Protein backbone atom coordinates (compact mmCIF):
# COMPACT_ATOMS: atom_id res chain seq x y z
CA UNK A 1 0.00 0.00 0.00
CA UNK A 2 1.53 3.23 -1.10
CA UNK A 3 0.63 6.83 -0.67
CA UNK A 4 0.56 7.55 -4.37
CA UNK A 5 -2.16 4.97 -4.95
CA UNK A 6 -4.70 7.65 -5.63
CA UNK A 7 -6.74 7.92 -2.46
CA UNK A 8 -4.02 9.82 -0.65
CA UNK A 9 -3.79 12.82 -2.87
CA UNK A 10 -1.10 15.28 -1.90
CA UNK A 11 -3.81 17.86 -1.49
CA UNK A 12 -5.75 15.70 0.96
CA UNK A 13 -2.68 14.99 3.09
CA UNK A 14 -1.71 18.65 3.12
CA UNK A 15 -5.24 19.58 4.10
CA UNK A 16 -5.07 17.20 7.08
CA UNK A 17 -1.76 18.76 8.11
CA UNK A 18 -3.31 22.19 7.70
CA UNK A 19 -6.20 21.29 10.03
CA UNK A 20 -3.79 20.02 12.67
CA UNK A 21 -1.61 23.11 12.37
CA UNK A 22 -4.64 25.41 12.67
CA UNK A 23 -5.63 23.52 15.83
CA UNK A 24 -2.06 23.88 17.11
CA UNK A 25 -2.18 27.61 16.48
CA UNK A 26 -5.47 28.01 18.39
CA UNK A 27 -4.14 25.95 21.31
CA UNK A 28 -0.96 28.02 21.32
CA UNK A 29 -2.96 31.24 21.49
CA UNK A 30 -4.74 29.84 24.56
CA UNK A 31 -1.36 28.85 26.02
CA UNK A 32 -0.04 32.38 25.55
CA UNK A 33 -3.17 34.25 26.64
CA UNK A 34 -3.98 32.21 29.75
CA UNK A 35 -5.43 33.85 31.76
CA UNK A 36 -4.91 31.41 34.67
CA UNK A 37 -2.31 28.72 35.23
CA UNK A 38 -4.73 25.76 34.73
CA UNK A 39 -5.73 27.29 31.37
CA UNK A 40 -2.17 26.99 30.21
CA UNK A 41 -1.86 23.43 31.48
CA UNK A 42 -5.04 22.47 29.61
CA UNK A 43 -3.63 24.10 26.46
CA UNK A 44 -0.36 22.19 26.89
CA UNK A 45 -2.29 18.94 27.29
CA UNK A 46 -4.15 19.64 24.06
CA UNK A 47 -0.91 20.55 22.28
CA UNK A 48 0.59 17.23 23.34
CA UNK A 49 -2.42 15.38 21.93
CA UNK A 50 -2.02 17.35 18.72
CA UNK A 51 1.64 16.40 18.53
CA UNK A 52 0.76 12.74 19.02
CA UNK A 53 -1.77 12.96 16.17
CA UNK A 54 0.67 14.84 13.94
CA UNK A 55 3.33 12.20 14.59
CA UNK A 56 0.83 9.48 13.67
CA UNK A 57 -0.09 11.31 10.46
CA UNK A 58 3.58 11.80 9.68
CA UNK A 59 4.21 8.09 10.25
CA UNK A 60 1.54 7.30 7.67
CA UNK A 61 2.65 9.84 5.06
CA UNK A 62 6.33 8.89 5.31
CA UNK A 63 5.64 5.16 5.75
CA UNK A 64 7.83 4.97 8.86
CA UNK A 65 6.52 2.61 11.55
CA UNK A 66 9.20 3.76 13.99
CA UNK A 67 7.49 7.11 14.49
CA UNK A 68 4.75 5.34 16.43
CA UNK A 69 7.28 4.85 19.24
CA UNK A 70 7.69 8.60 19.35
CA UNK A 71 3.94 8.92 19.83
CA UNK A 72 4.12 6.42 22.71
CA UNK A 73 6.86 8.44 24.39
CA UNK A 74 5.03 11.72 24.01
CA UNK A 75 1.79 10.24 25.35
CA UNK A 76 3.60 8.86 28.42
CA UNK A 77 5.50 12.03 29.24
CA UNK A 78 2.47 14.27 28.74
CA UNK A 79 0.48 12.51 31.43
CA UNK A 80 3.33 12.84 33.91
CA UNK A 81 3.74 16.51 33.03
CA UNK A 82 0.06 17.29 33.49
CA UNK A 83 -0.11 15.48 36.82
CA UNK A 84 3.05 17.23 38.01
CA UNK A 85 1.63 20.62 37.03
CA UNK A 86 -1.62 19.90 38.85
CA UNK A 87 0.25 18.83 41.99
CA UNK A 88 2.43 21.91 41.79
CA UNK A 89 -0.55 24.25 41.46
CA UNK A 90 -2.35 22.59 44.37
CA UNK A 91 0.69 22.59 46.62
CA UNK A 92 1.44 26.22 45.89
CA UNK A 93 -2.15 27.09 46.82
CA UNK A 94 -1.85 25.14 50.10
CA UNK A 95 1.44 26.74 51.07
CA UNK A 96 0.10 30.27 50.77
Amino acid at each position, binding site marked *: *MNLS*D*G*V*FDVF*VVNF*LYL*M*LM*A*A*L*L*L*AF*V*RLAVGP*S*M*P*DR*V*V*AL*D*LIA*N*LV*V*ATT*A*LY*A*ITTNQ*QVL*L*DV*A*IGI*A*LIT*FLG*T*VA*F*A*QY*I*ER*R*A*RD*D
Partner: protein
Amino acid sequence: MIEVVAHWREWLVLGLLSAGALFLLLAAVGVFRLPDVYTRMQAATKAATLGAGCTLLAVAVYFDDFGVTVRALLVVAFIFLTAPVAAHMIGRAAYIIGVPFWHGTKLDEMAAREGDSRRAASDEGKR
Protein backbone atom coordinates in the same frame (compact mmCIF):
# COMPACT_ATOMS: atom_id res chain seq x y z
CA MET B 1 -17.87 2.52 -6.37
CA ILE B 2 -15.68 -0.40 -7.48
CA GLU B 3 -12.69 1.79 -6.75
CA VAL B 4 -13.94 2.30 -3.21
CA VAL B 5 -14.46 -1.41 -2.64
CA ALA B 6 -11.05 -2.26 -4.07
CA HIS B 7 -9.26 0.31 -1.92
CA TRP B 8 -11.43 -0.04 1.17
CA ARG B 9 -8.52 0.00 3.56
CA GLU B 10 -7.12 3.26 2.25
CA TRP B 11 -10.54 4.85 2.40
CA LEU B 12 -10.89 3.62 5.99
CA VAL B 13 -7.50 5.13 6.84
CA LEU B 14 -8.48 8.38 5.16
CA GLY B 15 -11.81 8.47 6.99
CA LEU B 16 -10.20 7.83 10.36
CA LEU B 17 -7.54 10.47 9.71
CA SER B 18 -10.16 13.01 8.65
CA ALA B 19 -12.33 12.28 11.68
CA GLY B 20 -9.30 12.56 13.97
CA ALA B 21 -8.12 15.85 12.48
CA LEU B 22 -11.66 17.23 12.61
CA PHE B 23 -12.13 16.28 16.27
CA LEU B 24 -8.77 17.78 17.17
CA LEU B 25 -9.59 20.99 15.32
CA LEU B 26 -12.93 21.16 17.15
CA ALA B 27 -11.14 20.59 20.46
CA ALA B 28 -8.78 23.47 19.69
CA VAL B 29 -11.67 25.74 18.73
CA GLY B 30 -13.34 24.80 22.00
CA VAL B 31 -10.23 25.51 24.02
CA PHE B 32 -9.87 28.80 22.19
CA ARG B 33 -13.47 30.02 22.51
CA LEU B 34 -15.15 28.50 25.57
CA PRO B 35 -15.63 30.87 28.52
CA ASP B 36 -13.80 29.32 31.52
CA VAL B 37 -11.23 26.69 32.48
CA TYR B 38 -13.75 24.00 33.35
CA THR B 39 -15.57 24.15 30.01
CA ARG B 40 -12.31 24.42 28.08
CA MET B 41 -11.02 21.39 29.91
CA GLN B 42 -13.93 19.27 28.78
CA ALA B 43 -13.31 20.24 25.14
CA ALA B 44 -9.60 19.51 25.45
CA THR B 45 -10.18 16.18 27.18
CA LYS B 46 -13.02 14.51 25.32
CA ALA B 47 -12.68 15.79 21.78
CA ALA B 48 -8.89 15.63 21.77
CA THR B 49 -8.91 12.09 23.19
CA LEU B 50 -11.26 10.95 20.46
CA GLY B 51 -9.22 12.77 17.80
CA ALA B 52 -5.90 11.26 18.84
CA GLY B 53 -7.59 7.85 19.19
CA CYS B 54 -8.97 8.01 15.63
CA THR B 55 -5.59 9.05 14.23
CA LEU B 56 -3.78 6.21 16.00
CA LEU B 57 -6.40 3.72 14.80
CA ALA B 58 -5.66 4.98 11.29
CA VAL B 59 -2.01 4.11 11.85
CA ALA B 60 -3.02 0.62 13.00
CA VAL B 61 -5.16 0.07 9.91
CA TYR B 62 -2.63 1.57 7.52
CA PHE B 63 0.42 -0.49 8.45
CA ASP B 64 -1.50 -3.77 8.86
CA ASP B 65 1.23 -5.21 11.07
CA PHE B 66 0.75 -7.00 14.38
CA GLY B 67 3.40 -5.07 16.29
CA VAL B 68 2.21 -1.72 15.01
CA THR B 69 -1.43 -2.52 15.77
CA VAL B 70 -0.60 -3.61 19.30
CA ARG B 71 1.43 -0.49 19.95
CA ALA B 72 -1.21 1.80 18.45
CA LEU B 73 -3.96 0.20 20.53
CA LEU B 74 -1.69 0.47 23.57
CA VAL B 75 -1.33 4.21 23.05
CA VAL B 76 -5.09 4.56 22.51
CA ALA B 77 -5.81 2.64 25.72
CA PHE B 78 -3.24 4.69 27.60
CA ILE B 79 -4.70 7.99 26.41
CA PHE B 80 -8.23 6.83 27.22
CA LEU B 81 -7.12 5.86 30.73
CA THR B 82 -4.99 8.89 31.55
CA ALA B 83 -6.92 11.77 29.97
CA PRO B 84 -9.79 11.67 32.53
CA VAL B 85 -7.31 11.42 35.41
CA ALA B 86 -5.30 14.38 34.17
CA ALA B 87 -8.45 16.43 33.56
CA HIS B 88 -9.73 15.59 37.04
CA MET B 89 -6.48 16.71 38.66
CA ILE B 90 -6.32 19.95 36.67
CA GLY B 91 -9.97 20.70 37.41
CA ARG B 92 -9.46 20.12 41.11
CA ALA B 93 -6.33 22.28 41.14
CA ALA B 94 -8.19 25.04 39.30
CA TYR B 95 -11.03 24.85 41.82
CA ILE B 96 -8.68 24.89 44.78
CA ILE B 97 -6.80 27.97 43.64
CA GLY B 98 -10.15 29.62 42.96
CA VAL B 99 -10.27 30.12 39.21
CA PRO B 100 -13.63 31.84 38.68
CA PHE B 101 -16.61 30.12 37.07
CA TRP B 102 -18.33 31.32 33.97
CA HIS B 103 -21.39 33.38 34.94
CA GLY B 104 -23.68 30.76 33.40
CA THR B 105 -22.50 28.00 35.75
CA LYS B 106 -25.30 27.16 38.15
CA LEU B 107 -24.11 24.11 40.09
CA ASP B 108 -21.16 23.98 42.45
CA GLU B 109 -21.20 20.63 44.23
CA MET B 110 -17.82 21.12 45.86
CA ALA B 111 -19.08 24.19 47.72
CA ALA B 112 -21.70 22.08 49.50
CA ARG B 113 -19.10 19.70 50.84
CA GLU B 114 -18.43 20.03 54.51
CA GLY B 115 -15.03 21.28 55.51
CA ASP B 116 -14.06 22.47 52.07
CA SER B 117 -14.12 26.21 52.43
CA ARG B 118 -11.11 26.94 50.27
CA ARG B 119 -13.25 28.42 47.57
CA ALA B 120 -14.89 30.88 49.95
CA ALA B 121 -11.48 31.83 51.32
CA SER B 122 -9.91 32.33 47.95
CA ASP B 123 -12.85 34.19 46.44
CA GLU B 124 -11.81 37.29 48.25
CA GLY B 125 -9.09 38.33 45.94
CA LYS B 126 -6.35 36.19 44.62
CA ARG B 127 -6.83 33.98 41.65
